[in-house]
């Protein structure tokens, strides 16, 4: 019997908050993605090590044990090219340590909207962003605009 894979791909959601994992799962599954999740970095790395099919990684940055971007670096050693969306209430953690995102990485502030999460994942997948469903806060989209530039090699292009 062949396991059927969701057409839009499988997202690995890693967040130490059960409510955030469940929120991401609800949003992504209703949109047609497959979702697997893990409560910490060790569990996520074990899933990938065990051969779990993963197309995208959504990682909370501020997790106990191992920070999200440290975990993502380890997972990308196992799966080079895996695209990563970081979510956090505090972007200082990322930018203090690394100052900028690597290729194939994007960033989304918490709290995010349903449209914001779906568009950020779509951006990772397609390298472009669809017209926003609602007018988002400018600060929230600065990160996405930066990421669009990185993913497409273009900067400061209008996205509508």
């Amino acid at each position, binding site marked *: 019997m062949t396991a059927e894979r969701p057409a839009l791909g499988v997202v690995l959601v890693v967040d130490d908050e059960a409510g955030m994992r469940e929120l991401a799962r609800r949003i992504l599954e209703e949109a047609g993605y497959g979702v697997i999740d893990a409560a910490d970095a060790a569990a996520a790395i074990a899933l990938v090590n065990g051969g779990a099919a993963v197309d995208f990684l959504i990682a909370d940055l501020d997790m106990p044990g191992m920070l999200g971007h440290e975990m993502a670096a380890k997972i990308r050693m196992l799966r080079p090219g895996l695209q990563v969306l970081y979510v956090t*209430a505090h972007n200082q953690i990322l930018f*203090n340590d690394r100052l900028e995102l690597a290729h194939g990485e994007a960033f989304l502030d918490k709290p995010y909207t349903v449209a914001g999460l779906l568009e950020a994942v779509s951006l990772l997948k397609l390298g472009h962003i669809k017209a926003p469903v609602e007018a988002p806060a400018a600060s929230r989209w600065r990160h996405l605009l930066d990421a669009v530039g990185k993913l497409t090699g273009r900067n400061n292009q209008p996205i509508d």
Partner: protein
Amino acid sequence: MNGTLPLPIVHGLKNQLAIVLGFCELLLADTAATDRRRSDIERIQMAARASLELLSGSEPMIDP
């Protein structure tokens, strides 16, 4: 002048408010436009957003 809260507290509260706001949005999406409970959900959203604003005023500044 605003007081400041420790960063882990701010982070934890923002996480919880993100969960509240996210599920409010999902609830509204599943609630008919004529449903009188929409205004109750919107009241929860307003309180959560107001709480976020209070938090942003008490967040410690971190210099690079």
